[in-house]
């Protein structure tokens, strides 16, 4: 493995930190959506969405949003570099 892949410029480090901050916020949001806000909005079987009870749909939905959020964080960081 070339040393290059581990070596970073100061500027890159700044983008990396911004990416980390973005993901930290995303983590907190998804965590809240699956705990406190889950009980508030999604703690029920009805209505059914795509054949799934609402609680399962909600959980899967936030996993998908988390995935999209991570893709965005990654793209933002490495496009700038």
């Amino acid at each position: 493995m070339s040393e290059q892949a581990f070596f970073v410029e100061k500027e890159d480090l700044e983008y990396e930190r911004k990416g980390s901050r973005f993901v930290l916020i995303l983590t907190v949001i998804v965590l809240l959506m699956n705990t406190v806000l889950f009980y508030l909005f999604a703690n029920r079987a009805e209505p059914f969405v795509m054949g799934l009870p609402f609680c399962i749909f909600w959980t899967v939905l936030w996993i998908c949003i988390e995935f999209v959020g991570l893709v965005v964080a990654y793209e933002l960081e490495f496009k700038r570099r």
Partner: protein
Amino acid sequence: MENWLIALIIIGLYLVAALVIGVLAGRKREFLSVEEFAVTHRSMSSFLMWVIMGGAVFSAFAFLGGPGWAFSKGAPALYILVYCAMGLMPWYIIGPKLARLGAKKQWLCMGDFARSRYNSRALPVILGIVALFAFIQYLALQIKGSAYIFNIMTDGHISYNLAAILMYGIVIIYVATGGLRAAAWSDVLQSGLMIVVGWGLGLYLPLKLWGGIRPMFQNIAAAKPGFLQIGVAGAQMSKNAYSTAILVSVLGFIMWPHLFSKSFVTTPKKIRQTVVVYPLFAIIMLPVLLIGFAAVGKVDPTAITSADQILPYMVTHVLGASGFLLGLVGAGALAASMSSADAITHGASVEFIQDVYRTFRPKASEKETVIAMRLGIVIIGLLALYVALIGSAGLVALLLGAYGSIVQFVPLVYGGLYWKKASKQGAIAGLVAGVFVNTYLQVILNINPLDINAGIWGLLVNLVIFIVVSMIFKPSNKADVEAAEETITA
């Protein structure tokens, strides 16, 4: 041909394939290089990273426990999806930094980080011992789960003990010979098989038993009010228990030393790629939970001795006629266990040799170290087999305590990476207190006060002691201060 024989042949074919792939992956690599054996020269591809991290979470717990939770607990089984999806998120933040430091300072494992950051010889030894106990417990769970399935799918013709020795013996052989590379390549086969079996069963069983997923859930909702909810009348888990179980998992997942040390097997960019695609593994898990939901109302809970047996029960009672399917499901379940067991056995040996053996033999040559790691695989493997097949109550309690204590590494890791004043005294005192509180609550009293996970109670005590002791005993001598600064600014 009899069903059990067909099943045995299919499982046998899978085992041979796993062995061949694993052993071939390690061929023609430097046999005596620690960097190759432990961290594949820090050059692992994103695809293999994803597979090995995925294989690690998609374990016997997910494959047997997932349907078991869905069957016995209902909505709380969603915990497994959330933990799968979110477990790696903290790694996006700390992984790149660790990878850079690791490449610079040649770290191989978590203990190397602790030794280097805290300039301490005692800390990695404590960490290595807690990790070893936790790993053996984890391995014993994998062995028990898969041996049970192997035994059932071959209709008892392969005994439980023989099944455990066969399945885990193969893991020991390919990991001891091929190191991490072997574990990763065999995980490719294993992940593929798990996905096929998980989705096949998860989509077929609701259709066959209920006529579809929607009617299945409608029936459950009508028949068991509260079962598809958390913390209400009729629900099987309280809100506090559910939330804190998720919190412990999200904080603790990357604290497992075999996962933490994957920070040192590739580049910062590939670590981020791995985390980005990881939530897809949780989506892959969803049909596995449906297997358990399909059994609700169709299987009398008293027909099985523990909820974990619901998947094999469904397979033998609903699909029972086909030896081919029995074999495929057996192979899939074995794959789930083995893809976790290989990475854990590898991680356990690297961690123990680096943290404990090398602390007492600091002058060990590279050759000696790599041979010790390969032998360590065999010895740890035999210990895990002993615990799984024979065990003893006292030993099991000790291991359980360690298993629950992994999350106690959180303060020393994050403190070490981001807080200058974090000191070795603080890290050691916090860790010991956290492990003690967690083990006392979980194993000795067997309670979760206020329904809050014992790990969180341990973590609170740990964090307070870590901070207070670090404030009193700051890193004072020059070496300690430099070690701290170098880590934080990287």
